[in-house]
């Protein structure tokens, strides 16, 4: 059975259409990533799925429970970690954990095995107030609080925003273990490089889903070939590349430009030649394989 099924969810804030006709299926026991830039509507979708907000239209089920009618029962079986740290800063680590366990009618001891691995890392600071923890520690505590009642589905809204690279990698390792324990993980992130860690993902932009599938499926759907171009004058180079015939799109990608081209119309040598003719003789051009970000850029500008 699918853990999450939503159909035709739309939501507007006044004139702003935050979500437009969103439909998704998330299988039980997978990490499902919702990937999109800031303002794409990720948090709105989370708030609707976690019963915090009502959609204007559409319906949804989490573990077979309707997100509107059965919201009370649903709240018992989901865990939600909002993007912003929202535990009680003036309570200690242990008190926060006890508090949330009690609210779900359980105790930390009963579920210790469930959170042990994460909690053991912050246990030395159990008597410290939550507000005095470092960012990574806060995030671990929030995760513990969201897991303490053994939820079937865990909703994580941008859990890695503002977290350093090492902690981010650790975090995804933790998510994989949580998934292995049988919990469905629904996670959003603005970082395209994290998409590869998900079992399946949905790309969202301006309130619409622009693609779903496993990371491999999405990458396989990329219909062009890709060149990584590097040069000295990057911005004029970008403008020149966009003018070059046969190049479908070109975006700046870290310290290089990714240019997608139709292989039937042009090729690496041809592009290099046209760049030299335009006065960019000093650039290096490399064939590269597309990543999720390339797919996202293509899908969102299609």
């Amino acid at each position, binding site marked *: 059975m699918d853990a999450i099924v939503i159909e035709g969810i739309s939501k507007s804030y006044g004139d702003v259409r935050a979500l437009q006709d969103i439909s998704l299926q998330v299988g039980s026991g997978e990490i499902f990533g919702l990937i999109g830039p800031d303002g794409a509507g990720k948090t709105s979708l989370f708030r609707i799925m*976690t019963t915090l907000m009502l959609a204007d239209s559409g319906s949804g089920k989490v573990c077979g429970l309707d997100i509107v009618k059965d919201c009370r029962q649903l709240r018992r079986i989901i865990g939600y970690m*909002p993007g912003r*740290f*929202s*535990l009680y800063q003036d309570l200690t680590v242990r008190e926060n954990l006890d508090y949330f366990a*009690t609210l779900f009618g359980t105790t930390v001891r009963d579920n210790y095995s469930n959170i042990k691995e994460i909690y053991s890392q912050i246990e030395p600071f159990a008597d410290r107030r939550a507000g005095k923890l470092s960012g990574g520690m806060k995030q671990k505590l929030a995760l513990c*609080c969201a897991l303490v009642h053994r939820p079937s589905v865990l909703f994580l809204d941008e859990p890695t925003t503002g977290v350093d690279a090492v902690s981010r990698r650790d975090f995804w390792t933790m998510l994989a273990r949580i998934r292995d324990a049988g919990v469905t993980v629904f996670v959003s992130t603005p970082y395209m490089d994290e998409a590869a860690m998900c079992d399946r993902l949905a790309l969202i932009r301006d309130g619409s889903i622009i693609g779903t599938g496993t990371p491999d499926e999405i990458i396989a759907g990329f219909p062009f070939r890709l060149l990584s171009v590097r040069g000295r004058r990057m911005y004029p180079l970008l403008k020149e590349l966009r003018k070059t015939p046969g190049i479908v799109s070109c975006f700046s990608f870290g310290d290089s430009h990714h240019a997608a081209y139709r292989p039937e119309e042009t090729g690496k040598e041809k592009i290099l030649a046209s760049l030299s003719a335009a006065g960019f003789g000093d650039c290096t051009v490399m064939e590269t394989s597309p990543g999720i970000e390339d797919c996202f850029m293509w899908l969102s500008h299609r």
Partner: protein
Amino acid sequence: MWKYLLEKEFKQFFRDPGLPRMALAFPVLMMLVFPFAVSMEIRNINLAVVDSDRSEESVRLLEKCTSSGYFRLVSLCGSPEEAMRLMDGNKADAIVTISSGFGTETALGTGFPVGIKVNTVNGTRGSIAAQYLQNCVMMYLQDRSQHDGLPAVSQTVDISEKYYFNSLLDYKLFMIPALIVMGITMITAFLPSLNIVSEKESGTIEQMNVTPVSKSAFIICKMIPYWVIAFFVLTACLLIAWAVFGYVCRGNVLWLYLYTFLDIVVMAALGLLISNYSNNAQQAMFVIWFFAVIFILMSGIFTPVASMPDWARAITCLNPMRYYADAMRAVYLKGSTPADIWYDAAGLAAIGSVMVGWAIASYRKSL
């Protein structure tokens, strides 16, 4: 679960660096400092005198005025113009002019050539000064008729005042129930609403809303600590009033608690309403300030409701503090029972039911 929700609120309350100290300092400050500070007793009225008569009688009249303790004789002026200059320079609050022939005319009973001028830039001070001066003149006339057996001039009108329930016109006694009213309102309406708004601001309320805890249980547990504190403050204030000033409640203390309870219900609803319509503490603070000022000024605590114009009096009917303050004063000073002041209970209950209904409806929607 309720126990744990409450435990958490109390923990947070006592962990706050300021709140517990405030809860202790508030009643002490309120009872020990404010009764003196907000006193409306007017003393040290600067008096200028123009005595053109300089007779034995005029000196007796002036003595009567200065011996009352309310006036301070600043100057004996030679002319009314000189006295007026003093008043213009804000050196005199009142001028008594005694025309020549005062002694003979009063003795003959043909007239009473005394003029009183009062500076009413500060209206309260001015009108009270005028009243005091008139009283002094009355007392002088009474004395004269009693001791000297001479015919009194304005004996046709005899005003004698007797003050009930606060015979010495002790302003402190009058203010103590009112101060309690203000304190309880602050604690039960405004602190919880700030607390709820701060949970909104920090996002913790969102985290609470995804738990199975019902919203009403959450809110009630938020308010209970403030109710406990309110009753603590009420008790502390009554004890301080008794220990320091020797004032005791004339009526049954139980009625004070009953009316306080009614007020708390209204105020809790108001606090919840404010928090429902504010997204951050700044907005909430402004709304609170707005209500606090209106409540206090339109409640009859400082200025009697009866002396307000009709339209202002109509507005006070919507002010819960008016009923609560009236009830607290009636019980504390007069020993009234709910049978006497049923209308205060009715007013609070009417406002309360509207507010509670509105607060609950808007709270449900606010999510």
